[in-house]
């Protein structure tokens, strides 16, 4: 197999994206289980990583097109894909640094839209499809999941009100592990696939694979391992926000939230109205907070989260557009963007080391006295 420099760079970039996708999304499945103590932090990310890996192997039915119709897929070239991936990776790193969950798929689509727009004009972007497949689901997901979790939490507390608290808490903790595992498995079957799809389509475009090929075994391995490694690393900053920052979670709430997420995600993917995992899980946690007592939700955190969702698509699109534009100029441009992306990523990583969040301090929120007084003030 004779691969060009560009193709090799794009494959590596796709795997890096997959890795960021993993650690960005660990929180979706595991944040509440970690917060309530149902699972020890390291055990939670380990379990989630294994299930993501299993999920990657179980489902290798990759998409036939890169953007599922958001852009004119005939106009998508390998440099555009590269630009889109760079935009998505940088947005994932930036949101991880500030500890906010945001949808990795939206970041990827944003990057692709931006890169395609600059390369092939606005005509190549299907704005109607963007509204239909991204904006409407992004608004609907947290509402649906939030209402389900709210009702579930409210009823769970009502039903168990007079039972012995310790037995109840222990019972719900066990239940949480089951529902969190299902979310992790579903995540692996969906998100690892995306990277497999990108690599496979790049290999097809470059003539290394025949049209309509399924992903080769090494692609499945690489994508599965990248997402599992990312998951195991654990996006502790995001886990803390979702498990502790948004609301104080007790095990009945954690269970109601996880069950709501699982139900909404499975219903949405099997009834043909896909909803983003991140938005579903955040909505569930919010709902679980509201279901117990209205005042318990930190709305400033929820507001910042909503803001991050609003900016995901345009921010990734701008970076994707710039990166795609430069990459289009040839190997030198590709190398330049790769170096810049590594520098930016390294910078964000170094910045994160100043106040690291790890498995040891993930359940301490707020982390500093300054943040504590800020939260107390609102």
């Amino acid at each position, binding site marked *: 197999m004779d691969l060009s420099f560009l193709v090799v760079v794009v494959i590596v970039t796709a795997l890096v994206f997959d890795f960021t996708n993993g650690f960005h999304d660990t929180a979706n499945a595991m944040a509440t289980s970690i917060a309530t103590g149902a699972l020890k932090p390291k055990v939670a990310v380990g379990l989630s990583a294994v299930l993501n890996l299993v999920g990657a192997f179980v489902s290798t039915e990759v998409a036939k097109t890169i953007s599922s119709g958001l852009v004119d897929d005939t106009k998508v070239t390998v440099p555009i894909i590269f630009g889109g991936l760079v935009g998505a990776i940088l947005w994932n790193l930036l949101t991880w640094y500030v500890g906010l969950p945001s949808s990795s798929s939206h970041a990827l689509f944003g990057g692709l839209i931006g890169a395609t727009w600059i390369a092939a004009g606005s005509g190549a972007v299907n704005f109607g499809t963007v509204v239909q497949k991204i904006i409407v689901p992004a608004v609907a997901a947290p509402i649906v999941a939030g209402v389900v979790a709210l009702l579930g939490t409210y009823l769970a507390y009502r039903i*168990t009100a007079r039972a012995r608290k310790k037995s109840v808490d222990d019972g719900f903790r066990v239940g949480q592990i089951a529902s969190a595992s299902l979310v992790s498995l579903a995540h692996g079957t969906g998100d690892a696939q995306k990277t497999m799809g990108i690599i496979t389509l790049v290999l097809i475009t470059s003539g290394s694979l025949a049209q309509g090929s399924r992903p080769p075994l090494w692609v499945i391995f690489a994508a599965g391992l990248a997402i599992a490694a990312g998951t195991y690393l654990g996006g502790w900053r995001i886990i803390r926000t979702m498990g502790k920052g948004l609301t104080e979670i007790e095990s009945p709430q954690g269970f109601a939230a996880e069950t709501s997420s699982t139900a909404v995600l499975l219903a949405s993917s099997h009834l043909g*109205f896909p*909803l983003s995992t991140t938005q579903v899980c955040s909505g569930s946690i919010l709902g679980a907070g509201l279901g117990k007592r209205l005042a318990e939700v930190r709305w400033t955190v929820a507001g910042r989260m909503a803001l991050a969702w609003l900016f995901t698509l345009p921010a990734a699109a701008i970076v994707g557009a710039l990166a795609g534009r430069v990459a289009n100029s040839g190997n030198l441009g590709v190398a330049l963007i790769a170096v810049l992306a590594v520098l930016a990523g390294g910078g964000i990583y170094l910045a994160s080391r100043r106040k690291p969040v790890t498995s040891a301090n993930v359940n301490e929120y707020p982390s500093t006295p300054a943040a504590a007084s800020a939260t107390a003030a609102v």
Partner: protein
Amino acid sequence: MHINWSGLGEVALVSLIFGVGLAVVFALGVTAMARRAVAIDEKRPTPMLDTAVASLCFAACLAAVLYGLYLIIPQFH
């Protein structure tokens, strides 16, 4: 532009039934288990009804988990 409102409604309804339903069933099971645990602690005979309710509820939840696995794993369908 076409927005699939009925699809969204269907997702919302199914999620509501399963998501809330499971939370209720599990909570009933947990409550029965808690009553059973209290009886054991107080050296009373374990109430048959609580044991039966708990088993039934947890069996229903297990069935839901298995159905979830069936939906997630494409080889099953």
